[in-house]
C-alpha cells in the first residue's frame, strides 16, 4: 500500500544552516506517527515543508503517491492536509466562532458569494459549532480570539484544524506552553479524533509518555537529520537513541539504568 | 566589509552594479558622448545622490529600527534650508541674529550649524514628546509624523511666506569653479559631494565599528532581542531619530545655496528619498547608500536626456519613481532587501 505521506531526501537550508537534511520518511495511512527531537532539530521546519509553507531546497514530498512538492500552501488544505502550529497562529481580532467558521468555509464553494451573509450559511456555522464543542470552547464562541487564555488558544488552534476535517493532521506541539494539568484534556481530544478513524496524525510532542503510549511509529530527528525510526518499543530499546539522546533530554525512567 | 555583503546575497551586488552600469551608459548616450557633458552629468548626479542620502539615511534607520516611515523627514530638510538662508541673508529674514558675523563664509558655516542643531532639537522633541507615547502603534505614528510634516510646512509658510527665495549673497566658495574636460563645475558643489561621501563613510563606520552602531544594527534586525539583552532600546530610538533629523536639516543647509529656499523642497526630497530607501531595500543601510547613488545618477542622466526639446521634462521628473518601480519589479524587496 502506498503511504499517505512520503518524503524523499527532503532538504531545507537557511543560508548556511541546513535545518532539514536529507529526510526521507513514510507515514502509513491511519497511523499515528510521532516526530521527536531536541530543540532546533528541524521538526517545525519539516512540517513547514510538508504543509507547503516553505519550498524545499531539494527533495520531494508525496501525498497518496502524488508529487505535491510544488503544490502551494492553500491547495494542500484542499487535498486534505491540515496543520496546527507550535506558536499560536490565529486571527486575533476575529471571534472564536469566526476563526473556526473560516476554516469550514475555506473548502466549500461559497467563498465568492459577496451578497450572502456569512453568518447565515448554516452548514459552516454548524460545522464550526461542532468543532468548538469537540474542544470545549462552545461557551466562548463570541469573544475575540485574542482574549482567550493560552490554553483556550491551543484548543482553538485545534478546532480550526478539525473544522476543515482533514485526512492528514500535522500537529506541531499541540500542547506547547500549556500548564501541565491542562495537557491531558487536550490529549484526550486528540485521542478522540484518532479513535474516530480514517485519519492519519503526524505529531511533534515532547511528552514521552504520550509519544510512547499513543503512537504507532516514531521518527527521531537531530540536527536536521533522521537519527532513528521505528515502533515505540524499538525506539525505547534503541541504544543510540537512549544513550545519546533520550536519557539526557527526557530523563526517561530506566534510560540511565 | 565583504562579510556584510554575504547575507545580502550576490544578486544584490550584481544587480546594483548592472543597474549603475546601465545608468552610466545611458548618461553617456544622453550626453551625446561628449566627455565634458558626461562628467558634469555624473557630478550633478553624485551631488543629488548625496543630498538624497542625507534625507534617506535617517528615514532608513528610523524605518528599520521603529517601523515608522517618518513623513516629517522632508520637513526637516526644508527647515534646514530656510534657517540657513535666513541667517546668511540678514535683510531677508525673521531670525534676528546672524548679522553680527560679517564674513559671509563664516556666517554660512555658522548658519549650517544652527540649522543642524535646530533639526536635532526638533527631532528629539518629536520622538520623546509625541512618538514615544504611541510606541508599538506604528500606524498612528505614521499619522502623527504626517501631522507634524504639515505643521512644519505651515510654520515655514507662516514665518517666511509662500514664495521662494533665491540665494543672493555671493560666497567666495560658491564663485570658485574648476574645469573638467573644458566644462566648468562649481567647486562648492564638488565640496558638497565630498562632504556627503565623508558623512556616508562616517555613518557606515559608526554603524560597523562602534558599540552603539552595533546596537543600532542589531535593533534593526530584531528590536525585541536587543531589549531582552537589557539594552535601553528607547534611548537608541531617540538617538537615531535625533541624528536622522539633524542630518536632514544639515542637508537642507548645504543645498540651499544652489536649490534656493522653497515650500516644495520638503515634499520633493521626501518622495525621492522614500524611493531611495525602498529601492535600496528597507532595513539595509548599504541599500540606502547604493540607492541614493542609483536614484541620483539616474535622475541627473534623465535630466540631461530631457534637455533635448523633443523629449520634454516629464521623464526627468518621473525618474525616481520610474527607477523605483523598475527595481521592485526586478527584485520585489529592493536591491538589498530582506523579508519584512
Amino acid at each position: 500500500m502506498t503511504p499517505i505521506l512520503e518524503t524523499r531526501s527532503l532538504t531545507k537550508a537557511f543560508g548556511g544552516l541546513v535545518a532539514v537534511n536529507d529526510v526521507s520518511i513514510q507515514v502509513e495511512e491511519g497511523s499515528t506517527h510521532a516526530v521527536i527531537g531536541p530543540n532546533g532539530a528541524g521538526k517545525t521546519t519539516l512540517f513547514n515543508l510538508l504543509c507547503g509553507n516553505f519550498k524545499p531546497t531539494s527533495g520531494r514530498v508525496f501525498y497518496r503517491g502524488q508529487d505535491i512538492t510544488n503544490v502551494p500552501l492553500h491547495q494542500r488544505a484542499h487535498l486534505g492536509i491540515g496543520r496546527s502550529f507550535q506558536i499560536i497562529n490565529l486571527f486575533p481580532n476575529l471571534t472564536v466562532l469566526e476563526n473556526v467558521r473560516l476554516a469550514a468555509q475555506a473548502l466549500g464553494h461559497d467563498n465568492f458569494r459577496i451578497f450572502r451573509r456569512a453568518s447565515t450559511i448554516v452548514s459552516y456555522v454548524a460545522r464550526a459549532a461542532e468543532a468548538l464543542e469537540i474542544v470545549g470552547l462552545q461557551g466562548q464562541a463570541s469573544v475575540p480570539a485574542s482574549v482567550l487564555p493560552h490554553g483556550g488558544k491551543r484548543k482553538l488552534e485545534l478546532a480550526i484544524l478539525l473544522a476543515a476535517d482533514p485526512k492528514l493532521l500535522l500537529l506541531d506541539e499541540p500542547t506547547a506552553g500549556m500548564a501541565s494539568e491542562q495537557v491531558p484534556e487536550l490529549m484526550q481530544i486528540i485521542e478522540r479524533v484518532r479513535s474516530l478513524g480514517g485519519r492519519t496524525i503526524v505529531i511533534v510532542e515532547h511528552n514521552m509518555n504520550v509519544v510512547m503510549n499513543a503512537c504507532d511509529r516514531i521518527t527521531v530527528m537531530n540536527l536536521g537529520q533522521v537519527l532513528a525510526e521505528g515502533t515505540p518499543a524499538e525506539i525505547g530499546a534503541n541504544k543510540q537513541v537512549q544513550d545519546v539522546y533520550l536519557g539526557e533530554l527526557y530523563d526517561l525512567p530506566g534510560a540511565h539504568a | 566589509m565583504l562579510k556584510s555583503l554575504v547575507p545580502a546575497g550576490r544578486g544584490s551586488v550584481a544587480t546594483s552594479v548592472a543597474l549603475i552600469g546601465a545608468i552610466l551608459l545611458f548618461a553617456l548616450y544622453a550626453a551625446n558622448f561628449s566627455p565634458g557633458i558626461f562628467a558634469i552629468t555624473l557630478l550633478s548626479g553624485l551631488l543629488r545622490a548625496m543630498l538624497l542620502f542625507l534625507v534617506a539615511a535617517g528615514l532608513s534607520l528610523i524605518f528599520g529600527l521603529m517601523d515608522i516611515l517618518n513623513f516629517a523627514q522632508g520637513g526637516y530638510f526644508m527647515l534646514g534650508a530656510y534657517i540657513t538662508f535666513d541667517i546668511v541673508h540678514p535683510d531677508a529674514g525673521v531670525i534676528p541674529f546672524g548679522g553680527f558675523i560679517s564674513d559671509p563664509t563664516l556666517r554660512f558655516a555658522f548658519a549650517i550649524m544652527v540649522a543642524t542643531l535646530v533639526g536635532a532639537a526638533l527631532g528629539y522633541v518629536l520622538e520623546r514628546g509625541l512618538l514615544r507615547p504611541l510606541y508599538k502603534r506604528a500606524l498612528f505614528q505614521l499619522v502623527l509624523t504626517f501631522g507634524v510634516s504639515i505643521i512644519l510646512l505651515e510654520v515655514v509658510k507662516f514665518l517666511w511666506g509662500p514664495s521662494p527665495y533665491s540665494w543672493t549673497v555671493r560666497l567666495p566658495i560658491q564663485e570658485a569653479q574648476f574645469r573638467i574636460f573644458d566644462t566648468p563645475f562649481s567647486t562648492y558643489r564638488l565640496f558638497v559631494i565630498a562632504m556627503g561621501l565623508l558623512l556616508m563613510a562616517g555613518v557606515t563606520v559608526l554603524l560597523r565599528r562602534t558599540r552603539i552602531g552595533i546596537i543600532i544594527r542589531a535593533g534593526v534586525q530584531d528590536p525585541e532581542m536587543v531589549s531582552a539583552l537589557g539594552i535601553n532600546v528607547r534611548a537608541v530610538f531617540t538617538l537615531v531619530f535625533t541624528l536622522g533629523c539633524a542630518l536632514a536639516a544639515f542637508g537642507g543647509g548645504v543645498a540651499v545655496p544652489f536649490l534656493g529656499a522653497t515650500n516644495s523642497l520638503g515634499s520633493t526630497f521626501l518622495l525621492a528619498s522614500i524611493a531611495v530607501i525602498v529601492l535600496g531595500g528597507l532595513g539595509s543601510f548599504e541599500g540606502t547608500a547604493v540607492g541614493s547613488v542609483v536614484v541620483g545618477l539616474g535622475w541627473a542622466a534623465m535630466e540631461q536626456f530631457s534637455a533635448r526639446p523633443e523629449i520634454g521634462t516629464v521623464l526627468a521628473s518621473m525618474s525616481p519613481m520610474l527607477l523605483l518601480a523598475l527595481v521592485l519589479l526586478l527584485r520585489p524587496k529592493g536591491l538589498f532587501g530582506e523579508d519584512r
Partner: protein
Amino acid sequence: MAQNRLTRFLRSEWIYIVSSVLLVLFPHIVGWMTDSSPFGVQRGTRYIMSGSAVYWMSILIDIFALSVLVMSYNLMFGFTGVISFGHAMFFGLGGYLLGIVTQMTGLPPDIAFIAGVALVIVVSAVLGLGIGFATLRLRGVYFAIFTLAVSEMVLIYFGRWAVTGGEDGFALSTIPVWIDAAQSRINLYYVSLALFAGTFVFIRRLVNSPAGAVFKAIRENEMRAQAIGFNTLRFKLLSITIASVLGGLAGIIHALLAKKIGPEMLNVSHTVDALLMTIIGGVGTFTGPILGASGLTLADVLLREATVSIGSLTIDIGDSWLLILGLIFVLVVLIFPFGIVGTWNRLRMRFTRR
C-alpha cells in the same frame, strides 16, 4: 415571523433609516429653514445656483464624494489589511477620464456622460487588477510604495500633458443639464447621495459575506488564511479592484461638483486624506470613514471663515487652516487611540460588560 424580522431589522438599522430620510429631505429642510430654494433662483428659463440651500448641498456633495473615497480605502486598508499609497490615482483618473470623454470626443452630452462613467469603471477595475497582478510578489510596505510610484508618475504625466491643459487642467463644461452642478445641483445631490448610500450598503454586505470574512482573515494573519485553504491573492485582488472602482466613482462626483479637472485631483494628498480619515474615524469600522470625512470637511468649512481674537492679536483661522489640520491629526491620534468609532465601540463594550 415576517413581522418579527421586520421589527428586528428596524431595531438594528433605525439609525441608518432615520439618517437616510434626513439626507433625502435635507435640501428642502435647509431651504425651508433659510428661506431659499434648493433649485436655485430662476432667471428666465434658467436657474442660477445661489442661496443657502444650494450652498449646503455642495458641502454635502463634497462629503459624499470624500466619504466614498475613504470608505473604499477602508475596504482595502481597514478590512483587508492592504496599504496602498496610490489611491489618489483612481480618484484623479475618475475625473480625467470623464472629462476627456465629455469634452474631447464630440459625442452628444448624454451619451458622452454615460460612456465616460462606464470608461471610468472599466479602466479603474482593469488598472486596479493590473497593479495587483504586477505586484503580486510585493508585500506590505513594498506594495504601498509601488502604488505610490505609479500614482506619482500618473500625476507628473497629466501635469505636463498639453491635451488636458497641463498644470492648469481643464473645465468640465459639456455635461448633460440634468446633472450639471451649475444648473441642477439638486440632481447632482441625489446622484451623489445614491452613490454614497449604495457604497455604504454594498461595503457592509461585502464585509459580512463569506468573501468579506476572508478579507478580515487576510488582514489578521495572511499566512494562516492560506494554511486553511484560501488563495489569498484572489481575495486581495477582489478587494483592490472594488476599492479602485469606488475611488474612480468618487472622483467623478468631485469633478462634477468642481466642474474642473486638474492634476491636484491626482495629488497624493487625497490618498493621505483617505488614510488619515480612516484612521481618525476608526480603521475597519463602517461608520468611521464617514465620520472622519464629514468631520474634517465640516471643520474646514466652518473654520475657514472664522477669526479668533486674543487681546489685540487677531488670528485668521482660514489662513492657518492647514496648521490647525496638522494639530487636529496630532491631537486626535493622541486622544483617540483607536479612532473615534473604534474608541467608542471599546468604551461601549466595557460598560455593557459590567
